[in-house]
């Protein structure tokens, strides 16, 4: 298994009570609460952690993109990827991903990613997403056009990387007389494309058809296993057998000497992540047209309770892994076998977790977990699924 260090870069000094009063850390939570001194400190703290992950032996470091939120301070992840492209010497560098439908000129992502691929001499992983619903409120892009803009932007970016320019691109949303991206990507035919999603059936089907690595965001492991099975089934329908390398699970891991200590230490920071930073009204998460009507009804129904989640619930349902080295090793192996993934996109910093605890967690993972999984493949499940 490959284990990547995935950072959300939360503004961890946010006033959690203010977020609670506002109902969300997204879109309407005023940036008056952003302190540039503290924020600048966090950027450097987090970038230092990414470089530390590289030295510790993590297989990759991951950034992502969200807008107008204390949940993550990476509206333009390429800025941070640029900072890391030279200081992260060995690990892969992934942006998971840029929200291409939000852009009126997604050709700039073809350029940006090609630059990063050159800078890293081919260590770059190109994530493409639609962005979550809140982004469409924040950026003034029509959610009802999200899917068609994604499809068009993706097609144009891949063509920009693979078809020698200049050529003309004429779509419904995007029109260019000259597509002729300099530089071209370093990797051939282009950097690996990874597709993070909350589990949309159409996205899973499409990623499988395209043979893109599918990344499942924050979900209970049983659900993750079901989505990954859908991917393998769709791959079979497309006439090939998916490998575990095509499946990545996005999780949170916290390791301490004992289960009890790990739970005690992680609790406030993890609960701040799920109950404050991540929280938003359904109308913000699911603007009309963002998903098809059946998906919206399903997600609405699932969100009915809306009560705060505890760390016990998150651990029990396998959204996160928290515990002693032994517990974490057991769970991670169990989940790998259950769901059949070969990449773990692991948040080692989460919510309000401070720097010293984050680094201790990273060291513990590097020493106690990584070596045991280096050559470990999922066992049992794939063969069963293939039969």
């Amino acid at each position: 298994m490959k284990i990547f260090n995935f950072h959300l870069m939360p503004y961890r000094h946010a006033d959690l009570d203010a977020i609670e009063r506002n109902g969300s850390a997204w879109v309407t939570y005023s940036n008056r609460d952003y302190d540039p001194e503290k924020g600048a400190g966090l950027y450097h703290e987090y970038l230092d952690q990414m470089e530390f992950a590289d030295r510790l032996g993590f297989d990759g470091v991951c950034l992502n993109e969200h807008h107008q939120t204390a949940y993550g301070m990476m509206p333009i992840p390429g800025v941070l990827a640029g900072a890391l492209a030279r200081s992260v010497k060995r690990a892969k560098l992934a942006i998971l991903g840029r929200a291409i439908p939000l852009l009126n000129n997604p050709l700039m992502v073809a350029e940006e990613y090609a630059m990063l691929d050159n800078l890293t001499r081919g260590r770059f992983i190109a994530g493409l997403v639609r962005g979550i619903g809140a982004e469409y409120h924040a950026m003034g892009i029509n959610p009802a056009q999200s899917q068609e803009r994604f499809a068009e932007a993706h097609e144009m970016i891949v063509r920009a990387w693979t078809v020698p320019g200049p050529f003309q691109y004429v779509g419904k949303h995007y029109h260019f007389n000259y597509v002729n991206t300099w530089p071209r990507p370093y990797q051939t035919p282009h950097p690996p494309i990874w597709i993070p999603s909350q589990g949309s059936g159409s996205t899973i089907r499409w990623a499988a058809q395209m043979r893109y690595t599918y990344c499942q965001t924050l979900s209970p492991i049983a659900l993750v296993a079901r989505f990954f099975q859908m991917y393998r089934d769709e791959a079979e329908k497309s006439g090939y057998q998916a490998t575990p390398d095509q499946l990545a699970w996005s999780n949170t891991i916290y390791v301490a000497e004992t289960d009890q200590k790990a739970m005690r230490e992680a609790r406030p920071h993890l609960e701040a992540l799920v109950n404050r930073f991540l929280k938003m009204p359904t109308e913000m998460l699911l603007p009309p047209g963002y998903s098809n009507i059946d998906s919206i009804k399903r997600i609405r129904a699932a969100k009915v309770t809306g009560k705060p989640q505890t760390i016990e619930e998150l651990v029990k349902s396998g959204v996160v892994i928290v515990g002693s080295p032994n517990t974490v090793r057991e769970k991670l192996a169990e989940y790998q076998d259950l769901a059949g993934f070969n990449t773990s996109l692991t948040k080692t910093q989460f919510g309000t977790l401070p720097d010293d605890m984050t680094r201790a967690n990273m060291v513990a993972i590097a020493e106690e977990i990584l070596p045991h999984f280096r050559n470990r493949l999922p066992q049992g499940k794939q063969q069963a699924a293939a039969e």
Partner: protein
Amino acid sequence: MGDHTTSKIAVRGCNIGLMRGGTGRPLLILHGGGGAGGWMPYMADLAARHEVIVPEHPGYGASDTPDWLDTVADLASFYLDFLNQLDLTDVDLVGFSIGGWIAAELAVRNTHRLASLTLVAAAGIHVPDVEQVDTFLLTDEQLVRAMFHDEGRADAIVERLKDPELEDIGLKNRTTTAKLAWQPRGYDPHLHKWLHRIDVPTLLIWGESDRVFPKDYAFAYQRLIPRSRAVIIPDCGHVPHVEQRQTFVATLEGFLEGMRVAA
């Protein structure tokens, strides 16, 4: 509720729902973002003197969602086709909210088949520095309540939201409304340049306490449309035809009658 028929018709390959009732000159109603709903009491009132025609927009309710549907301008052109196909002339066109935007876009393009235009709490233009609720950040219940001056009057409609059979229609309508009005939020930045082309008598009916498109919008439309007059109804929000039905119907009838006497 008065005699009316409900049918489906195809206009250039797009099937839409259509309600018709009453006799007299044709009065074409273009509904708002909530959909056509049923045959409402104000329609029955108007049907006493007019042939009331209520199409359900493409993308709403039981109507098709055609591939060509992207903008309000598409619907304006669609309804010009609709008027041709039904061969309607001397039409009194009445548009509510987003339907008012469609009506204004239609009238800017061609008024040959129109006798008059009435915009009720209409979208379509932008008036700076006017506070408006963001309807897309409201729950279904908050959205219904935001339509009224007296929120207590929304109770019955809020109760109906619980009907699961209406959920699909509600989501479909909201999706189409987002498609048409999300960005720019409820207006076409170019429409205001051409409103001077509207050359039929125009009435603007607004609720005094409309929070969705406040009455400043009525005054802005009045400045932009040459032969227009604004009537502001007190104790009334975004849906005058529901919240102040009698005043609304009397105002509209008075305008249509006065216009014909003058002619």
